[in-house]
């Protein structure tokens, strides 16, 4: 069971009040991109045993989308942050580094 805090309404709720929205920070490759880029955009996903970044929606609450950083190994939630960003905030990345030294996820570390 995950306990997530919605960064928009401040509610700390358990996972069934939210809905997972898959992997975070996926860069879109649309018309004009190469077939490989488009293929990766559609199908290639991380599947880490450890630090992971996801999108979640506070579906039974304020209805807003947000991002969450968590560990798939221990189910620890490192933090949640705004959906209006293309990368994890630096303070959250530093906090993860304190707990999981040497972590990497895509181009982030």
């Amino acid at each position, binding site marked *: 069971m995950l306990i997530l805090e919605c960064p928009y*309404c401040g*509610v700390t709720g*358990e996972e069934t009040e939210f809905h997972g929205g898959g992997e975070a920070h996926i860069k879109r490759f649309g018309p004009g991109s190469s077939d490989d880029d488009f293929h990766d955009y559609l199908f290639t996903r991380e599947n880490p045993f450890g630090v992971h970044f996801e999108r979640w929606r506070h*579906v*039974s609450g304020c209805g807003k989308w947000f991002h969450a950083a968590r560990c798939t190994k221990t189910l620890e939630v490192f933090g949640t942050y705004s959906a209006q960003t293309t990368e994890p905030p630096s303070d959250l990345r530093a906090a993860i580094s304190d707990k999981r030294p040497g972590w990497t996820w895509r181009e982030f570390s």
Partner: protein
Amino acid sequence: MSDHVTSALAGAAFDGFVQLREAGACGMITLRGDFSSAVFQKAVGEVAEGAGVPKTRQITTAGDSAVAWMSPDELLIMCPHAEAPARAAALAQALSGEHALAVNVSDARAVFDLTGAGSREVLAKLCPVDFAPGAFKQGEIRRTRMAQVAAAVWMTGPDSFRVVCFRSVAAYVFGLLQASAQPGSEVGVFADT
């Protein structure tokens, strides 16, 4: 039209270890916009008898009106059912230059009242929310999940709650509350607090 209005369950009632009543037709206006705008705040105050824009997860009341915080850009304004169309129109007029939207959604939802000392417990059985007296207080609104459906809950008095859900699931939510309030099913978890 207003004299033909019926609420979702026509005033269904149940007396368990708390009293459960369907509250009847309630005027509701969904308002979306920028809460920080002075024009927006003024318009809300004028249409809600002075009840201001609530803080995050709060509900403000004045006279027959209430303003509930639904999300960072959405308010729910409650008023007598017959006044909702005029108030929605007044809001739309006052916000004509703003990036905002006011819609009368009075018939979209069902409203229930819970009254009695065990009300906190009836809700705590159904929602993943801490309803302990120190954790959930009057003036707060909580949108959450009630068993399988979305609902919103706030306190109308020290021992009374109002529950709002979508009209399409009114019978389901009434059934849930009825089962949760069944005499003999008291747990007494908040009895000492």
